[in-house]
């Protein structure tokens, strides 16, 4: 039933449960719904920060946001692309793990998941190196709003990814009686794809300004 139809139900009529099957038979797993809701929250965080980014750049200078002109964009070293590549490879590894989990191949699935986690850690290290690189070039946090936004956005994205790595380390080993590894791996893969998407949007924002 579509959402609209469900919200139009005249529930004061027709008592009974005819035609209403047991919800356990058709509902998606709760963990999946919870993850989607969480990604919604993360999307809001990054959207608001991007909006703040554009406002602070002075695009709306005539509305009292910031004085256009103090914004000096960061240089774009090749490391940005290396890190992006690492994250993308991590996502590929997770995608492989998801498919292997679906076809029930436990051992290769675990290796793929481990590879995904490893690439995630490398990405985080790469981001740290990028920070060091900027620091060495004098692009400190407080020196310019462009720097401040860069550090803030990458830090928040990195924290989300670190959470993904921690979850990813546990995912292939479900506790007895819990969900099977298939669902857990699938959720990890979704989350990593989401974070790659967020990173690409942030990258476009950084590159285009």
């Amino acid at each position: 039933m579509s959402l609209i139809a469900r919200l139009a139900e005249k529930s004061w009529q027709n008592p009974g449960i005819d035609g209403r099957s047991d919800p356990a038979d058709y509902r998606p797993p709760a963990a999946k719904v919870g993850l989607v809701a969480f990604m919604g929250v993360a999307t809001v965080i990054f959207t608001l920060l991007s909006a703040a980014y554009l406002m602070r750049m002075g695009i709306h200078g005539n509305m009292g946001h910031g004085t256009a002109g103090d914004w000096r964009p960061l240089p774009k070293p090749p490391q940005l692309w290396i890190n992006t590549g690492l994250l993308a490879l991590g996502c590929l590894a997770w995608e492989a793990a998801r498919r292997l989990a679906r076809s029930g191949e436990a051992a290769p699935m675990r290796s793929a998941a481990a590879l995904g986690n490893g690439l995630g850690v490398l990405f985080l290290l790469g981001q740290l190196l990028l920070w060091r690189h900027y620091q060495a070039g004098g692009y400190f946090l407080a020196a310019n709003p462009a720097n401040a936004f860069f550090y803030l956005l990458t830090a928040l994205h990195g924290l989300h990814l670190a959470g993904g790595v921690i979850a990813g380390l546990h995912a292939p080993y479900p506790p007895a009686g819990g969900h099977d590894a298939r669902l857990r791996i699938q959720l990890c893969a979704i989350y990593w794809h989401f974070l790659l998407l967020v990173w690409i949007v942030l990258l476009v924002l950084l590159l285009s300004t």
Partner: protein
Amino acid sequence: MATTIADDLRPMHHPKTWAGKYVWSQDHKVIAIQYSLTAIAVGLVALVLSVLMRLQLGFPGAYSGITPENYLQYVSMHGMIMVVYLLTALLLGGFGNYLIPLMVGARDMVFPFVNMLSYWIYLLSVVVLLSGFFVPGGPTGAGWTLYPPQAISEGTPGHQWGIVTMLVSLAIFVVAFTMGGLNYVTTVLQARTRGMTLMRMPLSVWGIFIASIMGLLAFPALFVAAVMMLLDHLAGTSFFMPAMQSMGQTSQTMGGSPILFQHLFWFFGHPEVYIVALPAFGIVSDLISVHARKNIFGYRMMVWAIVIIGGLSFVVWAHHMYVSGMNPYFGYFFATSTLIIAIPTAIKVYNWLLTLWRGDIHLRVPMLFALGFIFTFIHGGLSGLFLGNVSVDVPLSDTFFVVGHFHMVMGVSPILVIFGAIYHWYPKITGRMWNDALGKIHFWITFLGVYVIYLPMHYIGILGVPRRYYALGETGFIPQSVHTANEMISIAAFVVFAGQAVFFYNMIHSYFWGPKAEPNPWGAASLEWQTPETPPGHGNWGAHLPIVYRWAYDYSVPGAARDFIPQTEPPS
């Protein structure tokens, strides 16, 4: 399969130790009580602060312990605690936790462990918040809106450390809320028992559900704003901080946008009003329906109105910024959206009144509070129509008219619903009945008292008395009568404050010595009253989950044996 929570494959896990049951509990009912008691405790701090403020405003200088700096600190802590740490935590963490699983027929929240973490992180945020009273310089005095640059600039009380504890505490609170909110939303979506369609849910669940979604979307703005301001303060960035001159020295910061903070703050701040209001709307609908023995009038419209209000409240935030310097077209847009929100809100009010119309009204204590809410809410809503219009708002902005308005609409109204809800569900929660006479005394003191407090505020606000002022001093436009009115308001505030002792005495005394409560003392149809045990045991429903055959409002159905039909009763 009908005996499992949606897809929960784990067997119910029964804690054995005392600490596992009452401290590190993952039972939604225990977590609800923990949330509620913590929120009420910190709310009492805010209440004491308001008494101190009224002491100063009614009798300036009578108590020399309150300095002008203290006054600002009290205002700020009072406002923030009341809005975030009391109302949000109590309505969602408290009532949301208690009611959602019981009302939709689940054994618990879908993520019990995350639910437990949510409470402990909330407690941490409260501790960090209150630590502001003990850091050098005391808590922040920037107002609950925390506007930069003043919040972190010299001259504002607590600009060094108090603001840090406040911002850190808020960020922690957002984390706690997100954990709770994900649980509430997912539980409503995933753990409804067989037959519990969306439109068979009681309006309490609808209000809490939509408010939780709104919280998940609105609190990130507060989080982001808090983190950015912390960076401005501690790391010297210029997100919000413009260049400033002080003692001939130019600050290190430059070019930041204070207005940007205001946008972020109110993108959270306005939905927050409805995060508090929607659960109250839902709960009061149920109280009115049960105690008037009538089905709620226009159930579908009530649900839709909740959803529409929730959506619209994300596009009205800048009505708090009419005097901040915005493009006038923006003001026009936000004034329009603000007035449009009045339509679904008015529909709700009419439907409450039409539910009462020719109902079999039982004036029990919960019903009294529900009726009180209708008064204060209509009142606060009407003054809101004034403030929603740019040209009317500009002269009234930052006066006591605003203080009167928002206390009526989002202070007193939800508080009255909360009291009503506590009286209503107390027998289910504790298995005991409270004392009726004491409950009525509590209601009349509170209801009449808040009118004496807040009605005059509108008038002195129209005269131009500004808010957040320590003392009015000798000012031409403020007549003597304002001082008299202020004395009266303060005395009423002291009486209302003292009157709450009746409530606490009643609740605590009844918990130990009250008469045993029936499982369903009000003859209510919704699920939470049909549990096999009172108070409900761990897992709520015994061996089998209930099956729901009808909506939650079958009251006074013609031809039925009793004047209500529980949701679990199959059609004959």
